[in-house]
């Protein structure tokens, strides 16, 4: 896909992203919900396909991934896999940073069983539970505690 440019809420961080696909994935895990208010909506990009300028802060939020945000306004920028293996370096860039998402669709909802009752996205995006996604990636999700 063609490169896209985006920015955070305050504009201090600008970024260029080459999306891996025209899809947005929702994560309902406890940490994404605490980070964003509800689900983290992200566009996948390969290692090397994201560049950013500005005050980017990064936290190793689990043994296998890190999260980055704008230090000036707090906009969440991306979740990135740090664990060795086939997904090392993969980005999940916050979809809201990209101004032109025409043609993008909701591709999947992961940790769907962690979504609070009372609301749901419409549509038939593929849904995976916490157990299914953690078996798929061969990990346990209990370790993401951040910098506490």
């Amino acid at each position, binding site marked *: 896909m063609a490169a896209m440019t985006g920015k955070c809420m305050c504009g201090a961080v600008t970024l260029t992203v080459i999306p891996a696909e025209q899809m947005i994935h929702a994560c309902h895990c406890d*940490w994404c919900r605490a980070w964003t*208010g509800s689900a983290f909506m992200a566009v996948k990009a390969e290692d090397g396909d994201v560049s950013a300028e500005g005050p980017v802060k990064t936290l190793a939020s689990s043994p296998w991934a890190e999260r980055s945000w704008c230090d000036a306004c707090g906009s969440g920028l991306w979740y990135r896999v740090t664990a060795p293996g086939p997904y090392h370096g993969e980005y999940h860039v916050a979809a*809201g940073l990209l101004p032109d998402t025409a043609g993008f669709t909701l591709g999947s909802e992961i940790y769907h069983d962690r979504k609070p009752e009372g609301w749901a996205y*419409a549509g038939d995006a593929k849904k995976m539970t916490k157990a299914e996604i953690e078996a798929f990636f061969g990990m346990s999700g209990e370790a993401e505690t951040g910098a506490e």
Partner: protein
Amino acid sequence: MKGRCLCGAVQFSCAGQPRGVAICHCGQCREWTSGPFMAVFFPDGVTVEAGDHLRWYKSSEKADRGFCAKCGSSLFFRSRDTESRWNVSAGALGDHLFEIKAHAWVEDQPDWYAFADDTPRLRSTEFRAARQEGRV
């Protein structure tokens, strides 16, 4: 009702009863949180119990947004003219269940998601009026 950010550096306690959740589809919330922002409205405010890393950003003439400077969690949206009225990230309140009252700023909603509920879809002017009248 207690809340905290992802890393736990910011902790807070909400006063009184929440009025429910408004799901905001505005462009600013989308840039801030990746998608629609789910905020629980506490008319009686919030007491910040651990706030050394809470940072405020003035996102418009009317409002400030609070986030954790240590982990980047989006936490609060607060009108500057009525400081007791806090909109709190639903995700920061753990597994508490809240009633969805309405969708706000639907004129800004992109077409890559849709919600399944049938609560009112309010444009910005309609949402402001509804909040003023205490309906949301």
